[in-house]
C-alpha cells in the first residue's frame, strides 16, 4: 500500500476515503435491510408457487427441462438443484431481501422475494 500512499496528495486521500466510506456504508445498509416476507416463483407468465419466507420448506418447480429444486431456510430462498447446463441459478446463492431475484433462464424459472409493499397492495390484479 506504501507505493500508492507515496503518490497520493492530501486531496487524493480525502477523496478515496470518502468514496470507500460511501461504498462500505452502502454495503452495510444493503446487508442490514429487513428480510422479505414471501417467495414468489413463476415461469415469467404465470405464478407457480408462493410461500412465506420464514417457513423452511423444499419444493420442486416444473420447467421445460425438468424439475428445479427450490429450498427456503433461515438464509433465504435458493435453488439447490437444476437440470440446466451451467447451473448459474444455483451459484446465485440465497435471496432474502425484497427485490432479490433468482433466475434460471434455460428452465424458465423466476424466483422473487417480495416485501411488505407488494403484500399490502390494495389490488389483486391490474389490466389495461
Amino acid at each position, binding site marked *: 500500500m506504501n*507505493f*500508492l500512499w507515496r*503518490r*497520493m*496528495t*492530501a*486531496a*487524493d*486521500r*480525502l*477523496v*478515496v476515503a470518502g*468514496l*470507500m466510506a*460511501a*461504498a*462500505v*456504508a*452502502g*454495503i452495510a*445498509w*444493503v446487508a442490514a*435491510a429487513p428480510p422479505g416476507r414471501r417467495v414468489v416463483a413463476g415461469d415469467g407468465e404465470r405464478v407457480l408457487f408462493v410461500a412465506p419466507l420464514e417457513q423452511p420448506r423444499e419444493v420442486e418447480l416444473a420447467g421445460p427441462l425438468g424439475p428445479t429444486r427450490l429450498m427456503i431456510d433461515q438464509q433465504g430462498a435458493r435453488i439447490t438443484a437444476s437440470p440446466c447446463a451451467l447451473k448459474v441459478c444455483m451459484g446465485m446463492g440465497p435471496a432474502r*431481501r425484497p*427485490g*432479490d*431475484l433468482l433466475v434460471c433462464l434455460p428452465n424458465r424459472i423466476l424466483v422473487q422475494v417480495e416485501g411488505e409493499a407488494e403484500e399490502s397492495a390494495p389490488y389483486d390484479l391490474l389490466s389495461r
Partner: protein
Amino acid sequence: MICSAADREPLEQTRRRVFLALFTALAVALHTLEALWPAPAPWFRLGLANILSLVALFLYGGQAAWTVSLGRVLLGSLLLGRLFTPGFWLALGGAVVATLVMVVAHRLAPRRLGPIGVSALGAAGHALGQMTVAWLVLVRHPGLWQLFPLLLLVAVVAGMLTGWAAAVLLERLESHEAFRKAG
C-alpha cells in the same frame, strides 16, 4: 518527427496529435486485451485503458481525455464485434460519466488532486454510468441498485491502481523533452 525549430506552434500541434493517436491506439489495445481476459464477474475489471485517458487529461487537458475515452470505446467495440450491443452501451455510459467526472475534478482542483484521486472519482463515475445504463436499457429491477455499493468498492480500488499506473507513466513522460515542451 522532423520539424523546423522556427515552426514552434505547428510542431506542438502535430506532436500533440501524434501522441493523442498513440494514446488512443494503446487504450484500444488495453480495452480489447482486458475484454478478452477472463474476469471473475462481468463487471470485475481494472479498466486499464483509463490509464491513457488520465495521461491525456493531465498532459493535454479535458478535450484530449474525451478523445481518448470515446475513441477507445468506439474502436474497441468495433474490434470486438460489440458495436451497438448492450455491452457497448454499458461501456459508453461508463466512459461518458467517468470522463465527465474526471474532467470536472481536474478542472476544479488541478493542483490538489493527483492522478490517483481523479482516477478514483472517474472509477466511481464509471460504476454509476454503467449502473444507470443497465437500469435504463437492460433491467428495470430495484434489486439491481443493491449491487451498486459493492460495484463502487471494487471500482474505487481498481481506480486507485490505474491512477497509480498513470502517475508512474506521467512521471516518466514529463521528464522527457517532448512532453516538457507540450505541458
